[in-house]
């Protein structure tokens, strides 16, 4: 199981690391390992997340993808992930709809988006000799939201700086 928090920014990819004001994201997820070796892990991810951008939107997303970790003997891991997902957003502002010649207050059904995410970062195994070692990780996630504003801005780029931990629900389980 993975639990992580991150700070989102609407930014050109790889131009920013951490920005303010903070736009928090929370994510829980899991991994399924396809292949492992002394120095690598190749795995599938599945995540559920929540993103909150004050004054603009809040959203829920589901994504999945593949990841590759390179492991050093002293517990450090270099991580790379590519994930695809669905994001559904709702505005955090008052919303008005134009009906029969006037604006009326009311919510719509939100907006459906596709999200394509490329992440790079590092992790550290806290008990490097145990196959079920907890891990802390830091990821720089760059992602594209599509569609963004139909007929105006087709897609929007975002970055997240994420910190999280990975652990096995049943600590004594040996894979």
């Amino acid at each position: 199981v993975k639990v992580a928090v991150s700070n989102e920014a609407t930014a050109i990819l790889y131009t920013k690391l951490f920005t303010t004001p903070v736009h928090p994201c929370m994510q829980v997820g899991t991994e399924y390992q396809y292949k492992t070796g002394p120095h690598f892990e190749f795995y599938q991810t599945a995540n559920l997340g929540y993103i909150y951008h004050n004054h603009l939107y809040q959203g829920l997303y589901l994504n999945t993808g593949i990841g590759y970790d390179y492991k050093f003997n002293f517990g450090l891991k270099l991580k790379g992930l590519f994930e695809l997902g669905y994001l559904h957003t709702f505005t955090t502002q008052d919303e008005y709809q134009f009906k029969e010649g006037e604006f009326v207050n009311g919510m719509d059904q939100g907006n459906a988006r596709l999200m394509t995410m490329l992440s790079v970062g590092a992790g550290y195994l806290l008990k490097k000799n145990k196959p079920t070692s907890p891990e802390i990780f830091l990821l720089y996630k760059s992602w594209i939201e599509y569609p963004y504003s139909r007929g105006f801005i087709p897609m929007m780029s975002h970055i997240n700086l994420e910190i999280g931990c990975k652990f096995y629900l049943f600590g004594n389980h040996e894979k």
Partner: protein
Amino acid sequence: MKNNLLKIISLLGLVMLAVSCSDDESFQPSFYECSLPFTDSSQLHGSVTEYQVLLDKITGSGVPGIMMAVQTDAEGLWLGTSGKADLKSDISLQSCNMTRVGSTVKTFTADGTITRPTAG
């Protein structure tokens, strides 16, 4: 260790949520009152009806609010608006109010870029 990690991450998430929340900006009706020392003679303009019908047509199609200024040598200045400055407070837009020009400025920039060299 697992529980401690979870606590730290959860706490961090809560702190980030707490610092990221703030009230939306809201304006009192007095914010929209006109106080400019300016005498508006737009109602005396020869094309007042024509221009106003045009603006009302645009807001009638779903634009929340619009303002327009027309300056000609022959007829002088016309300022007009249609729609709302503030939907929440139901305040009508006036020609003295401030609006964001947004990407409209691109049109003016392009126009100026083309016409200024022509004008020498």
